[in-house]
């Protein structure tokens, strides 16, 4: 299991980092332009935390303008949209386990070959169309490891705790009481005539 994961990680690392960066470019064609870009999942993020478990690079989908077109990544992480008209477009990356900001891409008709890109989430401009996840997404709550405190905090734990306090702490308190007061209390108790634990407890709490 772990071995397999390490293998995938190294493979990805190789795939992602060994390739040469091509800059973002738009190539003018008959009536449309081509948007070339690259999705890069840093190896630090893709590291031990199980990229292999959540999704693979082959599952990553790149979506233009909210679903007009969708494409997939090549093994080196590159993608392209062909025949895109000039204008301002939106590119989204759907990758399980990662949060990508949508990207605003301006394809200019006046100076072909120029693409301006910016992350819409934080308005950061991109020099090249290299898309990196903003953060990793953890879909599950982490189960907290077992601790005594969680048991103590549970309703049952509180019940037991309260009982222990009453049983062990109260007699101590009684001992520290003024002997006269103690006697009075005992007399009172005797006058009630039922010397039992049952009325001992409320008697103690009353103090």
């Amino acid at each position, binding site marked *: 299991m772990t071995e397999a994961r390490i293998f995938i990680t190294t493979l990805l690392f190789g795939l992602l980092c060994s390739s040469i960066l091509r800059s973002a470019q738009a190539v003018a*064609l*008959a009536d449309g332009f*081509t948007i070339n870009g690259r999705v890069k999942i840093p190896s630090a993020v893709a590291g031990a935390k199980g990229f292999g*478990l*959540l999704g*693979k*690079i*082959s599952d990553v*989908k790149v*979506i*233009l*303008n*909210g*679903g*007009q*077109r*969708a*494409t*997939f*990544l*090549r*093994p080196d992480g590159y993608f*392209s949209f*062909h*025949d*895109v*008209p000039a*204008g*301002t*477009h*939106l590119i*989204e990356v*759907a*990758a*399980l*386990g990662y*949060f990508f*900001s*949508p990207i*605003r891409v301006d394809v200019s008709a006046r100076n072909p070959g120029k693409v301006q890109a910016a992350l*819409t*989430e934080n308005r950061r401009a991109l020099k090249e169309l290299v898309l990196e996840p903003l953060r990793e*997404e*953890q*879909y*599950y*709550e982490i*189960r907290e*490891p*077992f601790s005594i405190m969680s048991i103590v905090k*549970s309703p*049952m*734990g509180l*019940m*037991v705790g309260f009982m*222990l306090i009453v*049983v062990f702490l109260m007699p101590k308190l009684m001992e520290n009481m003024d002997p006269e007061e103690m006697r009075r209390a005992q007399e009172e108790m005797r006058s009630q005539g039922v*010397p039992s*634990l049952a009325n*001992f407890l409320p008697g103690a709490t009353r103090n």
Partner: protein
Amino acid sequence: MPTPIISLPLSLSLRTQIRQFSASQEIEGARSPPQAMAARVLSFYLLLFLSIAQLGVSLYEDQVGLMDWHQRYIGKVKHAVFHTQRSGRKRVMVSTEQNVIASLDLRHGDIFWRRVLGANDSVDGIELAFGKYVISLSSAGGTLRAWNLPDGQMVWETSLQGSKPSKAFLLVPTNLKVDKDNLVLAFGGGCLVAVSSIDGEMLWKKDFAAESLEVQQVVQSPGSDVIYVLGFVGSTQFDIYQINGKNGEVIHHETSNYAGGFSRNTLIVSDDVLVALDVTGSILITVNFQGGKVRIDDKPISDLVGYYSGQVELLALRLGRMFALKAHQHIALISVTNEGKLEVAEKVNSAAAISDALPFSEGQLAVARVHHEDNKVQLTVKLGNDWSTNLLDETVKIDGQRGLVQKVFINNYIRTDRSHGFRALVVMEDHSLLLVQQGEIVWTREDGLASVLDVTTTELPVEKDGVSVSKVEQNLFDWLKGHVLKLKGTLMLATPDDMVAIQAMRLKSSEKSKMTRDHNGFRKLLIVLTQARKLYALHTGDGRIIWSLLIGSLRKSDACGHPVGLRVYPWQVPHHHAMDENPSVLVVGRCQLSQDAPGILSFVDAYTGSEIESSGPVHDVLQVIPLPFTDSTEQRLHLLIDTKQRGHLYPRSREALGIFQQKSSNIYWYSIETGNGIIRGYAIKGSCIHEDSDDFCFEPRDLWSVVFPGESEKIISMATPKLNEVVHTQAKVMVEQDLMYKYISKNLLFVATASPKASHGIGSATPEEASLVVYLIDTVTGRVFYRMTHQGCQAPVHAVFSENWVIYHYFNLRAHRYEMSVIEIYDQSRADNKDVLKLVVGKHNLTVPTSSYSRPEIVAKSQSYFFTHSVKAITVTLTAKGITSKQMLIGTIGDQVLALDKRYLDPRRSLNPSQAEKEEGVIPLTDSLPVIPQSYLTHALKVEGLRDVITVPAKLESTTLVFAYGVDLFFTRLAPSRTYDSLTEDFSYALLLLTIVALVAAIVVTWIWSERKELQEKWR
């Protein structure tokens, strides 16, 4: 494991009391300080509790599969290519009508990998290339992609920009090489393109559209590099090009004419004969182009097949020296002799399916033919060269609910005795996929479920005395053992083996998949209508199919050429006779896709899955309005509106008519003409006056119309409140003990319009020319309550309407981000009911029934927030009593379902909420809505090709059932404010028992102690 859920009515009633209390307190004005104080303290704790409980829903990893299930499908298979080399895994590559390319395990039918292409990216063909790639051509020949065979990684992608729409072909020649590089040929957009198989680089391109040639076929000449391109210029000229496959140069070009004219239905037979029909469709033309020489012959079809009527069709099959002609409910298999003569080899019923020819040994071809005989399916594999020889003849029993065979693909294998065996992949009428081998069905895939059209739910049967439940109940010892195991798990004492046992025990829990109704209402039947006109009942517990029905009245017939299913409605929901009557559903269909086609109605028993009754073809159906009345048999009255806006009442009984006529003055409906930008309101005028009308038909009366200016506004989206939604409280307590009355009406309609340029996708409009206008319209009076313009915003708009609010999602071009806005509406005319005096004197108007005609004063509050993702569907949670707070369920572009608390979309959110607001749970203002990964309902799963999300209330107030469908199905249950009214499933009963035992033991011990101590005291 039976987990008796102890419901805690205390917390529930506490909550409701507080709500009602604080509301009523305002109304009565009884400001006794301690009471108010108590209420505030209580509500504070309640909110504290809620805020501790987080605003999302979240799941631990080991809880996956406890409440949810996920089913993966591919859709109706269009093409299939087998990959069965000697060693390694045997697989079959398929492409489907849902734009899926998948690799399936041939042994079990599981999915190895699957890629769901974009919605407009339909697959034209797939081929296997060089044993390592799957090549796919999609978007009408626009995109060529290569996929890695083992894992489905896309290797390269090439865009073929043609100049003109045309047919699309994919050709992977066997031995066409340029510098050791194999070529892939693709034809699309009028261009023939050769692409390198290594990196998808375009090697040469030949444009035929420029020569106004309509290419019909592209074939490789066997054993050479020559590619034949065949096509028509105009309707009478036939052109043939011979092209050098290595460089795209034209070697030879020849034209010839046929005076009768060609129709566009052509077929290639045996590499050098093209078969076509003439314009009238009655003459068969054979074009022999052997060696580049063209010879045209023709023959009337009636000479071949005898008398026939209706359309003739050439089936797109490659059968060696044969072709298949479909005429008059028969398929004629016609062979072409070497001399070019046509001979009918066999005539079979048109319910048969024929496979492509499969070469299997030394130039021999095998062709499979599947046809129906009684309840069985006959699979015959014949020798293509000699039609009288049967290679295989098997009878397979296939469930009658799968309908007819639609497609068959064959593959051969060598048996242990060195003879040839054949396996067949069969696509059925219900879109299911079967693998047949040696007369047995090896596996079945229910891929009809990839194209769900509509969903409704019904309750399961009530547990009866006769029904044996003992099988699922375990004995006490097992129960205890299970809980001890669980306890070990919580105390971290369990061994790995124990952990596995615990997980298996939880997942297997027979409680959730029982076939009877449960107290919490978690177990239901999902009745699902698919594109294949098949109805399925799925159990919400584990997603298994309880029954399925290919609706008989929705099948192809002479009266009904291309029937389609539309919607499914609950028809009869028995409450009084729940023990002995079954609920039923109404399926509405149409004869054709067009709106004015005759309608078909079918009534199906929801427990047995049998059709009770059907009617049709009847009048056309534009709209179905379930009315809030039921007759004595608890059948719901439905009003079906046709294209002339006439209403047709169902069920057709005197009693229903009586009920309807009594209420008919209060029935209103509206129609939205999206194209014209008009919304019209109607009421019932009286019985129909046209001839052949019956008593159940009603004429409409025009009431009102709202006309949008066509040049500046186009209707792009609308939303209405759900009819079955329950609203718990009419008033909302604001800060400082202020009170607002919600304006709650089921007759509200939300409409969004956009300027024509902004009504298309993103990227086509600039902020200056885009604007979005939203309206709230009363559908009884046509009154526009509210109108708001969003400048610089555009489609697509997704909206959801609930209680007194609408939330809608749209694109803001200025910020270039998506936004979500909320509009909440309040009724100002009831606002002065806070006055004590008025209440005491009885001058309040709270008991006055609200009417749409009363012209209430509406106050709307609105606010907008940024939202990161594109949205495919948006809905809201529904609960039984409407007490639980609401969550939005958002189907994102990444095919996940995100839950977002309604409190994030509160128009009262401000930058610095006051103390009172904070107490009430108003979240400080942020410009964008948070996307919390833990609140993805689908956790680490994807509902590929997501289309819609529906919610159904459970009986337990805190819980709602969620069903998301697309190519995949996903079901889960969700408690928006946590399950405050029941114990969670992982509640440790063992720990409770242990505590009680410990307490009892402690009591006994201390008792003994105290007795002893007393005795000592007495002795002293």
